[in-house]
């Protein structure tokens, strides 16, 4: 297969969902329900193409081309990319392009598959919706944007699609904009993301101003040759961290994780698509994409951010009662894992977890959708519009009424908890092993500690959720009346559950490193100067001048040249595995003890924990803190400024009355002397002079004469 065809296919994959969007936004209203089928079909086609691209990519070796000029098709290692000029500013070309390497190909599959399944799922789930075509149009836009991130081979396109993802998620989360909570959640998601994007943008600016290009491979190349922002390693670290800010926002890492749980206001398929598999994964994907630029310090920060996120989210998830919110915090926690993995230097592992997590988390969300949908229908049938159908306290016993949903849910929960024979076991175990190795090598023991602790908590809260929802007896009338959903809803669940089986990735159920995944997706060599890397990541063999060519696709690392880190990971693998099974098992057991067998009273337990429980239940008060500080501060500043501005304006006219009003409103905040003061003063002075001159005109002619004489005398005395 010619590289051109591969790239063309990639671009076709990218553009097909946009076609959905274009068709549906203009003609959707007339099509009605047909629009759903159109969308699903197109996405199905997309999926097939993605599978085809994946297979082709993984089975073909493309001949390298020698770069000739700055645009055209470039093939280096596993990376096939095309570059072209978007626009030029005189002599300065702004080049962009798309690239496909193994990582991309895999990610394409993840996105299209999940997207397709969500499309399918929504056919049923959203069928009552008035704006059904609009929903599919947005889904198309989202898929397009997400695929754009995946295919981008440069920062500019990355950012472009990054923002598009933001806006389409805004539209999807706020899809039910009649509800204030939904509209707020969409806005919150977008704004919190913007905060991350702000850092991302600055990071990109660092890169562009240093390297003069947006292209990943060119940046890596220059970096490998020792070019650094402002010529300093510190700024390289800063730049890396700024770029990572983008991921913090998108992947809901601490401290910007607050938007994700709120985003559950969106329709559940959207949650599955955006908040399980794709959008939130974009951050992780991006970190993986630019992995070579992170210095040791930057990596360490990344690892800690991931760890903290994983921990905080897990603690919160334990106490939540909303079905989707539990899953949401679980997602945040798992994303923390991925980031942490990337941070400690386990590139493939992190990405592997992304893929496996995508499947089972999507399944979890879709299952929750299935539950909610069923509950909704039941509630509708009972004319009950007050009960919160998402509250797990209102569920229970669904195992019987919804068996398909239950069993798939159970299986993927196991995968999430890291129980052997699931894909989750493979990936999570690998992560824990890496962190353990990292701790051993660097002494940062907190990271593995948190990793294991979170794993235990994950197991606990997932089974809390499962037990409360599905086991026992129905706690409400509605739950009793639920029944299993039909094909478009169940099929995706089953499919996703199936591919969460270990065998799809590695024949060895205990170690994924031997599977095809690890073979195809290999860690790119770092582009950072050696003195800024972890020593343990250095490969013994020194590169000579020629092979310092560290393009993204340069994954052809000689296999037997192995770094200290990789060695340690191998050593740590089995201890970590043992430990993780123990901890996960413990967590599951604990959940059963409390919720299934009720050996302890959960309420009493929480009361005993008191503050800690409250802290967790209120999500560590993040929202409140932000509302009080960042948002409050901004709003206050804006308010003050707007008042100030109002005052400046009106002050000119009716100074005095406004001063009173102003100071009544904002006593002591503002010393109103600045612009308005000056303007007022001028107005007053001119007014005064005008009035004085005015008063001289008394109408008495003799006064006039005196004044003229005084004028004369004054002039004489001035100039004498």
């Amino acid at each position, binding site marked *: 297969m010619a590289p051109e065809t591969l790239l063309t296919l990639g671009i076709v994959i990218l553009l097909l969902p946009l076609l959905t969007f274009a068709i549906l936004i203009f003609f959707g209203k007339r099509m009605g329900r047909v629009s759903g089928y159109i969308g699903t079909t197109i996405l199905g086609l997309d999926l097939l193409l993605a599978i085809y691209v994946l297979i082709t990519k993984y089975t073909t070796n493309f001949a390298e081309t020698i770069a000739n000029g700055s645009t055209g098709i470039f093939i280096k290692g596993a990376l096939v990319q095309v570059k072209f000029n978007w626009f030029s500013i005189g002599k300065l070309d702004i080049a962009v392009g798309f690239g496909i390497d193994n990582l991309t190909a895999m990610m394409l599959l993840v996105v299209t598959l999940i997207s397709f399944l969500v499309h399918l799922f929504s056919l049923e789930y959203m069928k009552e919706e008035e704006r059904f075509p609009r929903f599919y149009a947005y889904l198309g836009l989202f898929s397009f944007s997400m695929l754009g991130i995946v295919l981008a081979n440069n920062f500019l396109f990355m950012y472009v699609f990054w923002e598009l993802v933001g806006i389409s998620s805004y539209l999807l989360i706020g899809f039910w904009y009649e509800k204030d909570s939904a509209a707020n959640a969409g806005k919150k998601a977008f704004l919190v993301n913007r905060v991350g994007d702000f850092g991302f943008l600055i990071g990109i600016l660092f890169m562009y101003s240093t390297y003069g290009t947006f292209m990943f491979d060119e940046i890596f190349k220059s970096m490998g040759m020792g070019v650094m922002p402002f010529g300093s390693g510190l700024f390289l670290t800063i730049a890396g961290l700024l770029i990572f800010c983008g991921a913090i926002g998108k992947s809901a890492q601490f401290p910007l994780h607050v938007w994700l749980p709120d985003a559950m206001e969106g329709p559940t398929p959207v949650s599955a698509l955006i908040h399980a598999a794709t959008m939130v994964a974009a951050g992780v994907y991006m970190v993986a994409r630019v992995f070579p630029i992170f210095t040791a310090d930057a990596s360490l920060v990344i690892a800690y951010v991931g760890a903290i996120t994983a921990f905080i989210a897990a603690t919160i998830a334990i106490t939540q009662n909303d079905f989707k919110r539990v899953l949401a915090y679980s997602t945040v926690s798992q994303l923390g894992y991925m980031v942490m993995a990337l941070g400690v230097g386990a590139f493939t592992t992190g990405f592997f977890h992304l893929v496996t997590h995508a499947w089972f988390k999507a399944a979890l969300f879709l299952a929750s959708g299935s539950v909610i949908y069923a509950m909704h229908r039941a509630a509708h049938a009972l004319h009950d519009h007050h009960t919160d159908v998402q509250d797990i306290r209102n569920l229970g016993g669904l195992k019987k009424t919804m068996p398909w949903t239950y069993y798939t849910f159970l299986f993927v929960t196991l995968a999430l908890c890291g129980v052997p024979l699931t894909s989750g076991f493979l990936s999570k175990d690998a992560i824990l092993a890496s962190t353990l190795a990292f701790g051993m090598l660097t002494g940062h023991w907190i990271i593995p500690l948190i990793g294991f602790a979170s794993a235990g908590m994950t197991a606990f809260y997932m089974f809390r959720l499962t037990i409360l929802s599905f086991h026992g007896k129905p706690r409400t009338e509605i739950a009793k009346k639920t029944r299993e959903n039909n094909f478009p809803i169940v099929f995706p669940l089953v499919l996703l559950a199936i591919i969460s089986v270990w065998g799809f990735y590695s024949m060895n159920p205990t170690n994924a490193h031997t599977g095809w995944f690890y073979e195809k997706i290999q860690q790119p060599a770092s582009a950072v100067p050696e003195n800024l890397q972890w020593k343990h990541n250095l490969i013994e063999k020194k590169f000579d001048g020629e092979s310092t060519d560290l393009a993204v696709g340069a994954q052809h690392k000689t296999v037997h040249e192995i770094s200290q880190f990789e060695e340690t990971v191998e050593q740590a693998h089995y201890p970590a595995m043992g430990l993780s099974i123990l901890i996960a098992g413990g967590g599951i057991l604990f959940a059963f003890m409390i919720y299934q067998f009720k050996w302890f009273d959960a309420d009493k337990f929480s009361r005993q924990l008191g503050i800690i429980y409250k802290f967790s239940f209120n999500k560590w008060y993040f929202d409140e803190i932000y509302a009080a500080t960042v948002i409050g501060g901004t709003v206050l500043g804006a308010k003050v400024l707007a008042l100030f501005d109002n005052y400046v304006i009106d002050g000119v006219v009716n100074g005095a009355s406004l001063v009173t009003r102003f100071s009544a409103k904002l006593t002591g905040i503002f010393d109103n002397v600045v612009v308005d003061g000056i303007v007022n003063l001028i107005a007053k002075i001119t007014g005064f002079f005008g009035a004085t001159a005015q008063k001289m005109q008394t109408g*008495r002619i*003799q*006064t006039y004469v*005196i004044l003229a*004489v005084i004028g*004369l*005398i004054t002039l004489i*005395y001035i100039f004498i």
Partner: protein
Amino acid sequence: MDIISILFLVFAAVVIGSAGVVVFSKNIMFSAFALLFTLFGIAGLYVLLNADFIAITQIMIYIGGILVLIIFGVMLTTKITQIEFRGGLSGKIQLGTAGLATALLAFTLVTVFMKSNWLLKGDPNKVAETTVNSIGTMLLSEYLIQFEIASVLLLVAIIGATFIARRK
């Protein structure tokens, strides 16, 4: 002290004194008659300054014309009554300001005049022959155009004054 000096002092005293009466008198008729003395005094000064023709003109036009005009004016408009200076606070302020201003101006002028060098030519003590001759020559030669324009001016004044003063 020669006779000229004494005469000067007398005339100066008459001029300033009666001018003071003009300015400060409460009775308008007093003022009018005081003005008569002032103008006479000035005519005297002209004589001292060897300006015979001008002195005569002063008496004829000023006293014979203008002053009579003014007295007519007074009689036509005013019952002979007391005329106050401006009253009230604002009047007092104005009076004070006016007094100060004119006093300052007088002071300034006097000081400056005492110190200044003027263009002095010839011997002032030399008694000149009559000035009528040269004035006449000058009026009809160099100052011919002024002479003509003055006539236009008088015509304008006549037309204007008659128009305004005429009853409807």
